[in-house]
């Protein structure tokens, strides 16, 4: 069983800050970091910082998928939904980790960060078995 999770970051639903988020499992590569904060960085709500509370020097830039990838509505695997506490679809925020390169900015569509806004549990969900790219061009310089 899978549930469609759609991020809601438009209009009056635009989130500003979630001060404490607990990762149900650490992000690959960063096993020591399980508490994060999500902070909006620009007025349009297009860019957010996902900053470790365990060591604020670790931060990721994340974006809501909707403005950039119109048809991105990944199915969240049931094991991941269980770790998130089986959120209702409207309580879920999806964010994409982006990497600023010299020539382009890329977004990770294969492993979105999915946040349950009610219990503030989050997970970098791995959409294994899909053809989602780890580095999709977000914009070019």
């Amino acid at each position, binding site marked *: 069983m899978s549930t469609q999770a759609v991020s809601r970051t438009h209009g009056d639903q635009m989130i500003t800050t979630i001060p404490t988020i607990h990762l*149900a*499992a650490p*992000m*690959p*590569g*960063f096993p020591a970091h399980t508490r994060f904060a999500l902070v909006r*960085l*620009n007025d349009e709500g*297009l*860019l957010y*910082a996902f900053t470790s509370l365990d060591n604020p*020097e*670790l*931060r*990721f*830039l994340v*974006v809501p998928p909707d*403005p*950039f*990838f*119109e*048809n*991105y509505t990944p199915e969240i695997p049931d*094991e991941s939904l*269980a*770790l998130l506490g089986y959120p209702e679809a409207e309580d879920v925020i999806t964010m994409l*980790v*982006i*990497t*600023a390169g010299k020539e*382009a*900015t*890329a977004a*990770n*569509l*294969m*492993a979105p960060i999915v946040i349950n806004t009610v219990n503030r549990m989050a997970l*970098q969900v*791995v959409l*294994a078995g899909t053809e*989602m*790219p*780890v*580095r*999709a*061009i*977000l*914009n070019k310089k």
Partner: protein
Amino acid sequence: MLVLTRRAGESVMIGDDVVITVLEARGDVIRLGIQAPRDVRVHREEVYRELQAANREAASPTDAVVDELSRTLRPPSEPDAPQDNR
């Protein structure tokens, strides 16, 4: 590395609650069944390594990069299909 020989249908236990069962061996393809608690995340190694590398590359951009992106990042005027540049 510990090396064990197992036949189809036989299992290996890792710790108290992870069981890996050889389901089928056909040529150089081995099918495994994995039983693990929910909080034990199971990934194909190459997928996990790729994500690890991608996360490390994405981690901790400089303030200059963050400032520039927060000023300049805009959605595409014509929404594009996701592009793969692997």
